[in-house]
């Protein structure tokens, strides 16, 4: 601990935290979620969720990392010898996400190169599924590795390895100090370019025009809390790991609040860009916007390329968009991998470079599963289960343990002694009662829905293989790993 590296500057830490939080979901999930949950009216539950759940949890996680200066399992062990499994649960969630997220980042990088020649052609759907992914008939037909994607996945892991072996100051901090301003400038340039397109105003109208009737629907509130939760990189160890490298005299609450606001700010800018493009595409093709509006992988790799084809200066727009997607994804991947590497280094007293190398090799090999012909199906199921069960339950366990079994008051003292903004009773109330109850409701709701009908009506075999089995394995490993750590026994 005495030799633990620190962030070089406060700016470096905040940019890294923002880089971690700002990811693919900000660009392809938030805009469609807003549009389909009441438009501008959705911002009400969204900001309520930000203030009542997002910011309080980020503050807690940053204070855990800062106070104990250890990776999640070791930090939880410090709080209670019986609690390190909660940290391990977060690490295995991070591990799972790193494995498939790196593949999507590789897709974004490849599409950036495609944008130079608009190589996706006019049949963007056919190109994505057949030429690019070479998709199989279903999730149980794994097929073989698609070499053109696998090469880029290996490249991404090499870049992650180079970043993390360089350390916190010379690796992560330098990368985020370059990439985050580049991402911001790129999105602003894109925004200025697309918001003036014909039809953009219609798109923005569809996005922001409020439908207040949706506020009375619980689903809208659940969607808002879910988006804030998944968007802020909380409950899977990142903020704990990153803030463990903060020097002692560091603010916590202002850093946390800044991170949350800027993350949401990126979501808003992305939404303006996306819906300006969609509005333009709808107008250009003379079709209603609901025929083009969508979210997720389909939006990014099918709809946007189609829209880009129709635009003036299409190659520039295409390059900017996919490079933004790549940068947002890459800065998130390095933070996710950092959780795992710092855990290996802290728990097994291994030199950082060795821990990073071992993890990156394992991660890269496992990522190749998602570069197969059936990889997209596996990715979709794994992503759904790890987010809606893994992260949600990790959040519940973390909050219940700290708020009910550990001294939350001690965190209040720790935070207020060094922070610009103080926390008090409202913060404790939210973490002790409100957020766990809401998360519990979400978790039980997800459980019931998925028992009734398999996710996206995938075959039960596929959902069992990639989804439920994954959750069981993650939980089992979380319970077993504490037994393998020598210092725990001592």
């Amino acid at each position: 601990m005495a030799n633990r590296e620190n962030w070089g500057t406060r700016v470096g830490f905040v940019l890294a935290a923002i880089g971690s939080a700002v990811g693919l979901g900000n660009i392809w999930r938030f805009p469609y979620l807003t549009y389909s949950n009441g438009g501008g009216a959705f911002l009400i539950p969204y900001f309520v969720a930000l203030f009542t759940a997002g910011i309080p949890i980020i503050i807690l996680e940053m204070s855990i990392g800062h106070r104990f200066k250890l990776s999640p399992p070791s930090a939880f062990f410090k709080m209670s010898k019986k609690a390190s499994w909660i940290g391990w649960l977060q690490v295995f969630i991070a591990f799972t996400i790193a494995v498939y997220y790196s593949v999507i980042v590789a897709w974004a990088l490849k599409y950036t190169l495609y944008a130079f020649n608009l190589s996706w052609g006019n049949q963007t759907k056919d190109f994505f599924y057949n030429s690019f992914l070479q998709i199989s008939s279903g999730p149980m037909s794994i097929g073989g590795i698609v070499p053109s994607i696998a090469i880029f996945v290996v490249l991404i892991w090499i870049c992650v390895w180079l970043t993390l072996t360089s350390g916190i100051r010379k690796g992560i901090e330098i990368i985020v100090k370059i990439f985050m301003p580049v991402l911001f400038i790129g999105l602003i340039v894109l925004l200025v370019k697309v918001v003036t397109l014909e039809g953009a105003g219609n798109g923005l109208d569809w996005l922001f025009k409020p439908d207040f009737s949706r506020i009375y629907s619980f689903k809208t509130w659940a969607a808002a809390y879910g988006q804030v939760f998944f968007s802020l990189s909380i409950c899977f160890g990142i903020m704990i790991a990153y803030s463990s490298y903060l020097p002692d005299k560091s603010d916590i609450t202002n850093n946390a609040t800044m991170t949350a606001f800027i993350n949401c700010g990126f979501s808003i800018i992305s939404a303006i860009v996306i819906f300006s493009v969609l509005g333009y595409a709808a107008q250009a093709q003379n079709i209603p916007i609901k025929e083009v509006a969508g979210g997720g992988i389909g939006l990014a790799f099918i709809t946007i390329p189609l829209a880009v084809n129709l635009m003036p200066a299409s190659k520039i727009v295409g390059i900017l968009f996919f490079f933004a997607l790549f940068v947002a994804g890459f800065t998130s991947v390095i933070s996710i991998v950092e959780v795992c590497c710092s855990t290996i280094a802290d728990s097994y007293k291994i030199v950082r470079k060795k821990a990073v190398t071992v993890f990156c090799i394992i991660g890269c090999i496992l990522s190749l599963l998602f570069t197969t012909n059936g990889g997209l199906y596996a990715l979709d199921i794994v992503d759904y289960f790890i987010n809606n069960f893994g992260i949600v339950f990790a959040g519940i366990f973390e909050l219940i343990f700290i708020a009910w079994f550990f001294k939350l008051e001690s965190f209040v003292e720790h935070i207020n002694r060094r922070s610009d903004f103080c926390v008090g009773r409202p913060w404790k109330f939210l973490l002790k009662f409100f957020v766990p109850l809401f998360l519990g409701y979400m978790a039980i709701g997800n459980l019931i829905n998925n028992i009734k009908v398999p996710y996206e009506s995938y075959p039960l075999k596929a959902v069992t293989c990639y989804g439920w089995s994954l959750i069981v394995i993650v939980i089992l490993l979380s319970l077993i790993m504490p037994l393998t750590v020598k210092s725990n026994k001592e």
Partner: protein
Amino acid sequence: MSVSAIIFMILALLVTWGGAAVCIIIALKKQTKNKSKNLKD
């Protein structure tokens, strides 16, 4: 674009980036205060 859409778009940008700006200003002010405190010591 409708008036309500414009209002909500501006509101969204103000809350997020405005909030971030407030946080940054507070951080910079505290940094200046600490620097002058160190100089006095």
